[in-house]
């Protein structure tokens, strides 16, 4: 397994959640990962508003959120620059829950990124899980 191909597979998985599996000719798995990750991302944004993604004010939360892919940086840019005058700051439970949703999306996509990058080992892990 070459390092370059490993990085390439991981990069595809990072760019769009689920795309790594599509590249590995496993579109069903990719679609299910995309449903889970995008569902959590959209759910988090709906519950807490776009304010739950904030690279400046919530830096430590943004680190796991950034594993959703470039879309996390795009949403942060939209929040900070494009929609800044329209966004209402979310506080309390809805902010916490919304942030957690997006963090979960990022963490799950990180698992998928690693699984795509280490595909050979991944098949082995899945076989062990079955047994």
């Amino acid at each position, binding site marked *: 397994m070459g390092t370059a191909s490993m990085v390439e597979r991981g990069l595809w998985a990072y760019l769009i959640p689920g795309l790594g599996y599509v590249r590995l000719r496993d579109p069903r798995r990719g679609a299910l990962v995309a449903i889970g990750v995008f569902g959590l991302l959209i759910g988090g944004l709906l519950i807490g508003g776009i304010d739950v993604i904030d690279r400046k004010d919530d830096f430590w939360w943004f680190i796991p959120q950034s594993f959703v892919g470039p879309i996390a940086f795009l949403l942060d840019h939209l929040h900070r620059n494009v929609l800044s005058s329209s966004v209402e700051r979310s506080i309390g439970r809805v902010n916490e829950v919304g942030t957690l949703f997006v963090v979960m999306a990022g963490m799950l996509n990180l698992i998928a990124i690693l699984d795509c990058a280490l595909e050979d080992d991944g098949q082995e892990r899945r076989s062990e*899980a079955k047994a």
Partner: protein
Amino acid sequence: MMHPLALLGQSTGFRPFLEPLPLHEWWWITLIPMALLTSIAYKAVRMPQPKGARYVRSVGIMAAQIVIAMVVISLLLYVLVERIVPLFESA
């Protein structure tokens, strides 16, 4: 020029994605979709063949395990904070 979502908010009172959902006391209900979506993605990565009834059953079981675990942890924390800690305060 106002953003289309902001214009929508002027007519309905709620601007999705621009302001938080008015869940108030019902925020805990979000635990269920979170558990379900987490299980969908995790089981898709983990299972050898993520399809059919076996996949659906695995997702359902994992989602139920997450919800039950969260409820049990909440109850334990409630007992600890509201019942046990005050005993030490009064002593």
